[in-house]
Each structure stands twice: as C-alpha cells, then as structure tokens.
C-alpha cells in the first residue's frame, strides 16, 4: 500500500538477490513481537479473504466477492502497519539521514485516515438506512453479536496486557511500535468478525456495519495517567459498540424495530471517529514537526536559563520537534559575546536541555 521505495540505487547497488532480501525481511518481521503478531494476523486475514473470494467465485455469490474485496481493503491498513514496522528498522542511509523511524508515524496516520473514511462510509450508509430501513436477516444476529462481544472482551484483556508491556518495557525501543500496535489489534478483531460473518452466511452488509466498531485499540502516550484514561475510554468505546450491537439485535428480534440497526451503526461510526481523532491529531502534529506537547511548558524556562549563561547575548530560531515516539530533536542558535567561552556555553546548553528532556 505504502509506496515506500527509495530511489537511492545509485548509491547502493543491489548486490544480493531477491530471495535473500525477502528472507531478511521475514527475519526482521519475526524478530519483533509486535510485527510478528501483525504478520500472523495479516496472513490469517489474507488467507481468509482468499478463501472467501474463491468460495464466492465458486458459488457465484456477489456478496461474498465484494466482502472479500472489503477485506483486502482492510488488509491494506495492516499491510501499512507491517511495512512500517519493517521499514522503521532499516538503517539510516545517505538519503534518509534520520533513518526510517518516521514510517510508523506515517503508518499510524494512514491507519487513522482509513478509519475515518470507514467511519464516514458507515455513517452515510447508516443515514441512508435510517431513511429506508432495509430488511435485515436477524435470525443469527444475536448469538453472533454476543460472540463478538466476548471476543472483544478477550481482545481487550489480551491487548491491554500487551499494551502495558509496551509502556512499562524499557524506553523507546518498545514504544517505537506504538503506532503499529494500534494497527495490529485493529486487524485481529477484523479477522474474528469476518469469520462470524462468513458463518452466518450472507448478511455481509449488516455485519460489515459493526465489524468496524471493535477494530479500535489505540495505545497512546507514555504519560501514564493520560494513557490509562485513554485506554479506559477505548475499552468503553469498544464495549459500547458491541453492547450496542447486542441491544439492536435484541430490539430487532423481539420488537421488530428495524431502525435500531442503522442507529447503532451510526453510533459506532461516531465512536470510531471520536476515538481516532486524537490519534490523527497527534500524528499530524508529529508530521508537521510541532513542538512536542510534553515539552511545551518545559522549554521556556530552559531558554531563560540558557540566556542567563555568561556570554550569551540572545537565542534564536529554537526548533524542537518529535522524530518518532519519545525521540525529540531540538536545534537553536545562540548569539554569544566575542570573548565568551563557546565550548563551555555549548556544553552547558546541551546539559540544560538534556536534563529537561529526561524529566
């Protein structure tokens, strides 16, 4: 999905063959836990999509075919995450002097955008259906939705565990995978949902509506309190989504209120939208080289301290930005007196900022 090919062939002529390269990728994928999970889910998802496609062609069912294409589309998000997790491990070279670590931010951004698109489509379809409620086959919906709810709960517990591992795990190497962790849980749930979908046959358009509801699991900041809040919110959003599906199934089954389904899907779309927006905002901030929000308040005192150093006249063009998660980069220019000890100022300044940033 992401055309991340580099055009630096003139500097690095390819010496090894394709097989070697691919096996190298595999090794790098399998070496990390997150990308390994991601890869397995991708494989499952893809194989399932293929099975569905083949079965659809064989049984000549249009619904299955289009659903399998939907799944391919869903895979792209996963693929983006996986590609990012591979790419972000690449060594920096002449062209990409900072390395490829930003790929994961980009992947998170793409994922968020796709989720927004999906939410929008679900929402518009929900509106359409609210105006003209179609006939939904709701015989097997209730068990399926309860099953989905259970799966969702399991997913929450498992991934929350994983998420904690990330945040507690040492430093930046692990939290590098922040944006990918999002993608991967996303897909795990997709996979489950689609299997239900298959089993219950043809209601693809319906279960399509709610399968996106649970595909969210965002890990956010390294700040623990905010993180806990975020995780909690997402758990609530997730469970609310599936509880909504169960309720709408009940309503449809018992009272024949067909409008419950579109309303539920609209709510889910809203939930997706609301929970994706912070992720998008954060990644846009990073991509635009914004001053990291965590440093926003810490920086002005630092500037003051630097300006109070002996021999420093003034301070210019401070640029502080986030390279990738937990890696901040800052540059600034100093005017110093002609007779000042430049070396000393330099090291002092360096020290001031390093101290603040490790706080």
């Amino acid at each position, binding site marked *: 999905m992401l055309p991340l090919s580099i055009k630096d062939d003139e500097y690095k002529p390819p010496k090894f063959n394709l097989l070697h390269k691919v096996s190298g990728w595999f090794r790098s994928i399998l070496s990390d836990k997150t990308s390994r999970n991601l890869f397995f889910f991708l494989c499952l998802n893809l194989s399932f999509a293929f099975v569905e496609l083949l079965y659809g062609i064989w049984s000549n069912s249009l619904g299955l075919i289009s659903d399998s*294409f939907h799944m391919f589309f869903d895979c792209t998000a996963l693929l983006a995450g996986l590609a990012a997790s591979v790419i972000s491990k690449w060594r920096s070279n002449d062209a990409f002097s900072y390395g490829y670590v930003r790929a994961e931010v980009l992947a998170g951004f793409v994922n968020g955008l796709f989720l927004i698109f999906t939410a929008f489509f679900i929402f518009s379809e929900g509106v359409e259906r609210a105006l003209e409620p179609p006939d939904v086959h709701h015989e097997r919906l209730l068990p399926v939705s309860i099953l989905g709810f259970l799966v969702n709960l399991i997913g929450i517990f498992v991934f929350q565990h994983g998420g904690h591992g990330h945040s507690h795990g040492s430093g930046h190497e692990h939290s590098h995978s922040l944006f990918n962790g999002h993608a991967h849980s996303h897909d795990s749930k997709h996979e489950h949902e689609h299997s239900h979908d298959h089993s219950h046959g043809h209601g693809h358009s319906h279960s399509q509506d709610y399968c996106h509801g649970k595909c969210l699991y965002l890990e956010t900041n390294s700040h623990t309190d905010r993180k806990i809040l975020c995780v909690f919110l997402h758990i609530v959003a997730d469970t609310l989504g599936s509880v909504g599906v169960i309720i709408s199934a009940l309503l449809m089954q018992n009272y024949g209120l067909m409008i419950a389904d579109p309303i539920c899907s609209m709510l889910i779309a809203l939930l997706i939208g609301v929970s994706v927006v912070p992720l998008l905002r954060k990644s846009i901030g990073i991509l635009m*080289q914004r*001053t990291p929000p965590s440093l926003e308040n810490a920086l002005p005192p630092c500037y003051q301290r630097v300006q109070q150093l002996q021999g420093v006249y003034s301070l210019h063009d401070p640029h502080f930005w986030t390279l990738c998660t937990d890696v901040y980069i800052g540059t600034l220019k100093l005017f110093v007196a002609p007779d000042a000890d430049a070396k000393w100022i330099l090291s002092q300044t360096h020290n001031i900022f390093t101290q603040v940033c490790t706080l």
Partner: protein
Amino acid sequence: MEEKYSGEALAGGGRLGPVDVPSARLTRYIILLCFTKFLKALGLFESYNLLKVVHLVQFIFIVKLGSAFFMVLFQKPFSSGKSITKHQWIRIVKHAVGGCIISLLWFFGLTLCGPLRTLLLFEHSDIVVVSLLSVLFTSSGGGPAKTRGAAFFIIAVICLLLFDNDDLMAKIAEHPEGHHDSALTHILYTIIAFLGVADHKGGVLLLALALCCKVGFHTVSRKLSVDVGGAKRLQALSHLVSVLLLCPWVIVLSLTTESKVESWSALIMPFITVIFFVVILDFYVESICSVKMEASKCARYGSFLIFISALLFGNFWTHPITDQLRAMNKPAHQESTEHVLSGGVVVSAIFFILSANILSSPSRKGQKGTLIGYSPEGIPLYNFMGDALQHSSQSLPRFIKESLKQILEEYDSRQIFYFLCLNLAFTFVELFYGVWTNSLGLISDGFHMLFDCSALVMGLFAALMTRWKATRIFSYGYGRVEILSGFINGLFLMVIAFFVFVESVARLVYPPDIDTNMLTQVSVGGLIVNLVGICAFSHAHSHGASRGGCHSHDHSHSHHGHSHGHGHSHSDHGHGHSHGSSGGGMNTNMRGVFLHVLADTLGSVGVIISTIFIQQFGWLIADPLCSLFIATLIFLSVIPLIKDACQVLLLRVPPEHERDLHIALEKIQKIDGVISYRDPHFWCHSASVVAGTIHVQVMSEVLEQRIVQQVTAILKDVGVNNLTVQVEKEAYFQHMSGLSTGFHDILAMTQQMESMKYYKDGTYIM
C-alpha cells in the same frame, strides 16, 4: 454567558450590579414557562382540529367569549381600579378591533399551513421581532451578532417557503374555488391566488404579516394598558369588546350558512382547553415570567421551548398512539398525513431557534457603552471599558472578507477558490434541479459532487494555512500542511479508485442495466466544469514553476508522461507542454487537487464513452470496463504523488539536492581546520524550506565564526535555507565530561548514532 456576565458584575461591582435573581429561584419560573408553552402548543394543535369543523369567525368568537368570561371573572375590571373615561373606551374598542384582525389572520394562517408552521412563525416574542426589524431597517442594528441572527431568521422563513413539501398544498390546489365559508375567507383566498403563490406559502406570508402586526399592536397598546391600569385589565376589557363586535357577524353568519357541526356539546371540552391553554394560561404565565425574569431571557426560553414542543407534536400528533389518547376529532382522523414534518420544517425550526437565541440576547455593546445596572440612587451605570469597544466575537462578514482577500492574494489558492466556486455552483444547480424534478439520481449525484468539493476545500484551506506564520509551537511554520493535504488527497483518491475497481469487478460479472437518460447531460456538464478546472490548474502549473519547489521533476514528469501517454483528454496535452517548457513542479497540494479534478474528469469521460457504447451497441459491459480502466489510471497516477509526499514526511534528503549536498559535504571536509563532520541531516520541510543540521569538529585553534560562515555559505549555495551548525572542539568534550551529569552524556555523545536521544545544536554567529 448571560449568567457569567451578571455573575461577574455582581462579583466585581458588589451591590451595583443589576438586580439579579439567583438561578435556583428562576428555575421555578422556567419550568412554569416550559409547561405553559408545551400546553400552548397542544392547544394550538387542538384548535387546528377544531377549525376543521368550526367556522373561523365562529371559532374566534367562541374563544374570545370564553376568555372574556374567564378574565372578567378573574380581573373584575369593572368593580376594581379607577373608572374608564370615554376617550379610553374608544381606544379600547380600537384595540379590540386590532386584536380581532390579528387573531383572524393568525387562525386563518393556522388553517392554511397547519399548527406546526404556525407555531414556528407566529410564536416569536416581541423582542426578537423588534431587534430583527431594527437590524433590517435601521443602520444601527446592534453589531454582527444581530445581523447573523436576522440572517438566520430570514433563512428560516425562506426554508419554510421553499423547501417545505407540504402535502396539503396539493390537496387544496385540487379545489381552489371549493367551499369557502364566508366572504372574508374568500377574499383572502382570492388575494393569495392573485399573488400567485400556493395556499400554504400564502399562509406563511400571512403569518409573517400577522407577526409584524402583532408586534406593532403590542407596542401601540402598551401605553393604553398603562392608562387603563394594567395589561390584564386591558386584555379583559378588550376581549369583552371584541366579543360584542364579533357578535353581529356571527349571528349573520350562522343564519346564512348551515353549520357543519353535528353536536356542539362534544366541542365544549376542546374549546375550553383551547381557551385556557392558548389564551389565558399563556397570557398570565408570560406576564409573570417577564416580570420575574428578564424579558430577553423569557423570550429566549419561551421560543425555544415552544418550537421544540411544536416539533414534537408535529411528529407525534398523527401517530397512532396519540390518536388513541385524544378524546375527540374522529372526523379529522382520515387526513392524518397532512402538514407532517418535512426536512424544510426541521431546518427552519433549527434556524428559528438559533435566531431567537441570538436576537433575544441583550446587546452588550452600544454606542453608549454597556449598561451594568443601576446605582443605589437609581442612576443607570454604563461601562465604557475595553470590551465595549472591542467586541470579542468577530464579525462573520468581516472574517469572510479577510479570508477572501487572503485567498485571492496568491495564485494557487485563487485558482482553487474559483474552481471551487464553479464546482459548487454546478452542484447547487444540479441539486436544485434534482429537487425540482424530484429525480433521485440527480440529487445523489449532487451530493457526490458536494463530497468531491471537500477535497477542494481541504486544498484551499491548506493553501491558506501554508502562509501562516511560524508560531512557538509550530516552529518551522505550517508549510507542511500542503504536503499533508496532498498526501490525504492522494490517499483518498486511492481509496476511491479501489472501491471503483471492486465495484466494477462485481459489475463485470453481472452487468447491471443502466438508466442512461439523465446521465449524459449531467456528465457532460461535469466534464465541462472539470475541463475548465484542469485548464486552470495546468495554467497554474506553468506559473507555479517560478516558485520552485523541492519536488523532483522526474517524478512529476513520470506522472504527466503517464497520463499523456494514455491520451485521455486534450488538456493533458497542454499540460505536458507547459511542463516541458517550464521544467518546474507544482507543490504537492496543488498536485493533489489537480489529480482529484483529473480523476473526476476521467470519470465523466468514462461515463460518456460507456453511455455511447451502451446506447449505440448495447454493450452493457462497456461501463464496468471503463470504470476498471479509469480506476487503474487514477491509481497509477496517484502513486507518484504519494511517494513524494511520503518521502518528504519521512524526512528524506530532498532528491533534487542530493548530489549537490554530497559535493557540498565534501567541500566542508576540505575547509581549513575542519577535522570531520558528523550527523548531517537535511530535509525538506515544505516546498520552500529546506532545513538542515550538521556537527562540525574543528581544530582547537581555529575561529568558530569563520567555520560557521563558510559552512553556511557552502550549504546555502546548495539550497539549504534553514541551517543549524554546531561547531565542536576538543575542549567541548572535556567540558561535557567535566559536568556533573556528564558521564552519560559523553556516552551518549560517543554513541549518538545508536541512541538519538536529544540533540542540541548550537550555532555561533559572530
């Protein structure tokens, strides 16, 4: 805001603030008001049902009679208070005549356009209407907020007039000259018919007229009510007089026409409810509330509540459940679909609520400053300080004017803006035409176009935002926005292409039957619009070359060559040419927008071609094939854009500067006194900003300033315009190790490539 304001005044001014009742005591009145308004809405709906069986004049007569009876009972206007002079009696008669005319208009409007619309139009308090009229007809309307409110009001009325598909319109139109009970109704009908509007719309106009009359009437009668001794007494007397006035008419009427009412006894209950709810209760509660609360607050809550309850009733009045609850009106039952909710009504209700809110809010700033309250001596206190002079809320027209100016300043955004306008105009024409002819296909296509416009809006916004100044937070400025916008546009196109692909695959299997009637004209129109857009943007492209970007030519070349090679539309040809001559690239944002427009054009071309095939040869498969082809084309043409954007976002060394930078770095190595350099980072922040940082290690005896100057000069030649250089000497590392926390830092310094923790680069300039 209101509470906050008065609270501040209380806190700041101590006893000087306005006499403000605590909100806890106000809630009682608000609840009372709410209840009353709800009942009033109920009563109006009931009276609409009554008016179906009872003649208008009779109805008004009975209502007036009942209310006069009760009010005389409550107020005792003859036994209490001072006696009324003859002159005052004449004025009361005039008042009664005015009241009768207004209620005639009101209830006639009610019969014409149903209770819901009547409530929406007529139940505005005087404050709202007065401020609306003052905005419309005087120059000192009270600032931009009031103007906004007036605009909302007018929009709401227009919504009711134009977008309200009322079912009764058709029904009445069937018998335009049917049974008209009296001369008065007949005259009104003929007037409306003469004006050439439908009955329902005539009702709307009538009600608007009645509303204005009512406000004028209230204003005029205020003095009289003071003279007579209270509004309540005046009301009671006026009702009585109007009963006497209407009496002969009703007698004549009941003699000449035969009544449609089977049993008057069954109508007693509904009449009593109407009298109580619509006239008496509302009158008393309104007067109490306007005394206890501020009039503006009262108006705001009242109109809000009555509109909401009107909407609720409008939705549920004809519902089967409420039918069971209602006691009477079996005959009115069969027409349960008339005057139902429609989108236009809901929209206009929302606008009415908004406008009532805005218009009834007290104007804070006037020429005389803000009234804070009254001093203990009773002298009004005004505030001339800051916030009265500079209003916090920016005027909408001024904001629009300023942003328009900004948009028109730059070439890119101007192009996008004009094209957006064109597109929007086309869309609205399409939508209007679709609504007019009730064609679903056109409407959905219009919405699709509207959706497409969102890409343009995003591009426009990005083009604006790019010019924002760098802030403390976004220290490099907002130049990246245009890359992000291009990227999002590209992704969006990819998603669309993917879905089109999928759908066309599905259609390949089962080619559906396509209705080609409207399609051709619409797609030809779209094609023309989009061709204009392509011309404009390709023109922009050849101009934009002078700006020079950091985007590689070869990428954009490949893209242009691509679409050119397929020979899809002639404007592409021109595009390729202009490109070849200028040799620059437009920025990512413009490329994204351009691609979007291109995709739309291809879509219309595809539709036209496939329509021709289907109509001429009956090849149904032409449509999916076409869309398949187009999807692939879009996909392939977007890839270079996304690739470029990704490279920028991944902080790649700008490809077109890559070779130069290598040479420059070699030059730096050769500068006198430079031992080595490390961590050269160069990246493209936006189209015009190339940022870079480098650490240079120098001998201990050379001057830093000279090194910095030379390095900066060398790199500036290459195009790096935002450079930070850190000059390091032997002593620097000694300092670092000498500091208390130095050890880790030294470690970090030496292993900087592994753990890029925090870089601190300082430049020394003179």
